[in-house]
């Protein structure tokens, strides 16, 4: 009997338990706000958001692998595509697109056009330099790092998130640059 193929992000999202996105959006906003009050430094908040995301990602990747049924990604391009199309879709309900590849194919942008984290969000001027969505880059980093440490996956790259941020002029766009440091080709 042939094994089941990979499932689309839409199909998985339709099959999981879903909740009111407002609760999620407002909870995240309240967390960021509280972190700003408690930690005061924007850089420290960015770091903590990334760490939180990382801790979430290392666990969330299990659910991703279990539900998406994706086969091993053969190269970094495929990894990025699968993260954008399936990963984001099955959790956040919105797909992302992958653009801006560099010549070597080791660096790209994942663009999330419609980001539930930033609904109703306006950043005041006092938050210059805050990467509001930094939790997302932590999640990606954590998830991919978990996948890359498994011995039976010789082609998995190591990842380094170079830049991420909420573009304040276009609050709906979330841009993540992902660069791979080495690919064992």
């Amino acid at each position, binding site marked *: 009997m042939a094994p089941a193929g990979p499932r689309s992000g839409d199909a998985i999202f339709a099959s999981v338990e879903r909740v009111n996105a407002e609760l999620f959006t407002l909870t995240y906003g309240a967390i960021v706000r*509280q972190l700003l009050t408690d930690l005061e430094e924007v850089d420290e908040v960015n770091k903590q958001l990334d760490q939180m995301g990382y801790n979430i990602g290392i666990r969330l990747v299990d659910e991703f692998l279990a539900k998406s049924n994706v086969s091993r990604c053969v190269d970094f391009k495929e990894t990025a595509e699968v993260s954008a199309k399936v990963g984001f879709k099955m959790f956040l309900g919105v797909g992302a697109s992958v653009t801006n590849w560099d010549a070597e194919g080791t660096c790209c942008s994942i663009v999330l056009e419609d980001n539930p984290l930033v609904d109703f969000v306006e950043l005041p001027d006092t938050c210059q330099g805050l990467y509001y969505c930094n939790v997302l880059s932590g999640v990606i980093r954590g998830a991919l790092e978990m996948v890359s440490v498994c011995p039976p996956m010789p082609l998995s790259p190591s990842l380094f998130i170079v830049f991420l941020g909420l573009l304040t002029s276009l609050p709906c766009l979330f841009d993540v640059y992902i660069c791979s440091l080495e690919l064992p080709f």
Partner: protein
Amino acid sequence: MGREVSESCIDSLLTEMVSSYCNRFYANKPELAARRIEAIGYQVGHQLSERYTMERPRFSDHLEAIKFICKDFWSELFKKQIDNLKTNHRGTFVLQDNRFRWLARMSAESKAAQAMSMYLYFPCGIIRGALSNLGIPCAVSADISNLPACEYPESYVLCVVMHACSLCSNGHCHGQL
């Protein structure tokens, strides 16, 4: 139904928030961690009740507001209503959810007593924030009880005790949904 995200998103975010505040930011100061977690919940409850009451006329009395929390508000958040509302007619209310979603999905290791009680500060904050926005200052605490398997298998009962200070001196308060 408005926009949705997967339940894993909110579950993992809450678990990580509690873990960060308890184990990283205020590692040896559980009271401070608890206050922060409750404050985050307060903020969320305040904003959510603002949104969910935008198109409604003002509540005629406190009991109507509390019923709103038990029915519409709880449904928006947890897709079900509060199962039982009791009062002592002197300003104290007990709200009971027989199958509180967030507890039902927590992993076994995070169900250790201290982690659990920290976690519950968040929904308490939500309720306190929501009621505060509706003009009812109150103190909220929560407890869980695990009923025998024959009644509610594999579920957790959340009991929220709410003391609405301004209702102490009032007369009759029937507290029935």
